[in-house]
């Protein structure tokens, strides 16, 4: 476990000391800012329109910032993560395999599990860095309006869980390939599959819909953004992440077998 954190620290170092890492972060921050500002303008227009329609008593504002800004912001960032997580995770294993670092790492007194966990924690910290911009956003919102913090934190937690699940997918795909580009493209494909797949068989029979539907990820994530803490959803995300990590670890074994 200690080794896992050493590897995770090294992952974060690799991210913040490379120009590419900061480019990805900056782009994510830009997209997030774009979303926040457009939602704030929409919120303002809606509030003004409602006030002008005269349906409100004085001193009351009928629109809630959680409904109009925070919930769509978090939900949209969740879908944006589909594009950004592959950029964050594609390096992790593929690059190490290509450069021969995997060999060096595994000649250290490090277990395969430490390696996988380390990479996962590293990607988690990277994700946290990505989402750290939300602290700025929330500070802005706290200054200009009065958010419902309970719902906001639960939504943010949901976004983190979603990102972690995406990370686990990206890691696994990254184990299986030797080039970062291949890893990136394949994880993007896998994530798209994961996100649109369960809803894609609208024409299918009922039982496949209900089975696939229970694996739908975005509806569960949406519950978090609504300020609904469903322990079943938390267990679902945790279970899928664990299974993906187990698959990644098994795949590292496979790599060690195949050379």
């Amino acid at each position, binding site marked *: 476990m200690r080794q896992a954190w050493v590897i995770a620290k090294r992952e974060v170092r690799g991210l913040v000391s490379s120009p590419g890492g900061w480019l990805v972060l900056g782009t994510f921050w830009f997209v997030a800012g774009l979303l926040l500002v457009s939602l704030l303008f929409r919120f303002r227009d809606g509030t003004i329109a409602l006030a002008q329609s005269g349906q409100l008593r004085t001193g009351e504002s009928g629109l809630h910032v959680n409904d109009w800004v925070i919930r769509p912001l978090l939900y949209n960032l969740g879908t944006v993560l589909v594009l950004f997580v592959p950029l964050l995770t594609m390096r992790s294993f593929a690059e190490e395999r290509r450069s021969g670092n995997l060999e060096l790492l595994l000649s250290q007194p490090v277990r395969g599990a430490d390696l996988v966990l380390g990479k996962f924690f590293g990607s988690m910290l990277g994700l946290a860095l990505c989402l750290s911009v939300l602290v700025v956003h929330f500070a802005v919102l706290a200054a200009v309006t009065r958010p419902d913090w309970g719902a906001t934190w639960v939504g943010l937690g949901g976004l983190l869980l979603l990102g972690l699940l995406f990370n686990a997918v990206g890691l696994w795909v990254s184990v299986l390939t030797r080039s970062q580009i291949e890893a990136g493209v*394949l994880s993007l494909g896998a994530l798209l599959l994961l996100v649109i797949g369960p809803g894609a068989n609208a024409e299918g029979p009922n039982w496949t819909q209900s089975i696939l539907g229970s694996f739908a990820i975005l509806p569960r994530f949406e519950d978090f953004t609504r300020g609904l803490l469903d322990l079943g959803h938390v267990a679902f995300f945790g279970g899928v992440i664990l299974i993906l990590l187990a698959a990644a670890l098994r795949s590292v074994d496979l790599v060690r077998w195949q050379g």
Partner: protein
Amino acid sequence: MKSDSAKSSPLLLLGLFLLAAGGLLSGVSGPRAYLPRLIMLAGVASLLWGAFNSAASIRFLLFRARAVAEPGPSLNWLLGGAVLLVLAAGLGIRGARIDVTSRGVNSLSATSKGVLKELSRDVELIAAYRDNAMERDQATEVLAVYSAASRRVKTRSLEPDREPEEARRLGINRPNVLVVRCGEVVEEVTEIDEETITQTILRVQDPNRPVVAVLDGHGETSDGRSTLASLRGLLARSGLVFRLLRLGDFVEVPREIRTLIVLGPTSPLLPGEIEAIERFINRGGRLALFVEPETTTGLEPMLARQGILIDGRRILDESPLSRSLGLGPESVGINRWGEHPITSGLGVGLVLSGATRVGLAPQPVFGTSGTDIIRSGNDARLLPRSGDTASVPSAPAALPLGIALEWETPPQEAEAGPAPREKGYARLVVIGDSDLARDSHLDLYGNREFIGRICGWLTERTYLLRFPPVDRSGTPLRVGLAGLQAIFYGVEILVPLLAFGLAFRSWARRR
């Protein structure tokens, strides 16, 4: 051969991707399209080829890996993950949801919770929405809230166009409704809000099924008139018992009858019948009277005493709405209603055929509260009675066509048996047309719902629960345009620039 997995894993992913893409396409282009099937076929082929390629890898992972290498925790992780998934499925059924919003937007009010806790029978909520319906997501969310609140409430969604057989079996006749079902009783909910849904649940699961009698014997069901099969079905599905009543045989309206419908008699009622009906009303009975123009029922004097005036002349409605219906000169289209539980939130207009004016007396009778619930368009005129050549049609106006009235009745002496459920109110609905409740017109536009609501109001199947007002409070936005622009510069330019600056710095360092 050096790396099986590197070759086969893209194949597997590609296969899955093609399958999903094909599924998506066929969802868009319909099940008969040719290309999506081809794509899905390619996906299956790719999956099979990938699996074939990685057969050695799979063998290794399944059998050899543990024999060769240190066990590692992957199996434990896998088991842990599986346990969590089972737990998630269990919690999904059981519902372990914590609403953390301060406004409680994701939970039911205490009133609904209390109602659901008392449920004694299973109630099924079915969202029958088309995939592209606007309210679909809202309905799904509401359903999730209800199913989490009580184990008695089962929910399901179905697409009525895709599963027409199933929809018909469940008693769903049109798309984009929320249906509440309990046993054979089915009710549609058109407005997705907590109050309506909870009231409907209460209604459908009530085992007491009031008897609604339709008076017969005065041409109501004579040959040549449209039959009442649809009305019978409508009542049954609203949890009411339909019965035809020939009052002439009785001295009194039977006790178990709470609601009486008089549906367009062509000949006047007998005086004994009229007296029986008056007694029935005075002890808190409910009466719906549908009158046809140019006929006399004999109930008019009694109604006049309560302040309801039936004109009797036929109406010719020249308003664009009625003409656009294209259902003949006698039809009257209605899309204006008064404030009343029967009509509130009624979405679709009504169609009457051969109507007459039913209005309130200018001076209301003391103790009664009446509402004219439906009105014609502005261009309706009353035609002279047939045979009357001296008169001319009246000036065009919006004419009242239906009245709902209620008043308190004196308390009744206790009878043997259970006391009547109704409170001491008499309720009366008079509509200036009877065709809208018959098979010919019941399924046109909003007629079915309108009749259903009349029966619901009369039988008091609208439960008058008190709901706390929904917290619609919003949050203020304490910033002007300039402030928003400052935010724009901050989060959209400054923050990303910071990151790009750091990117440049590390790039420069590497040089």
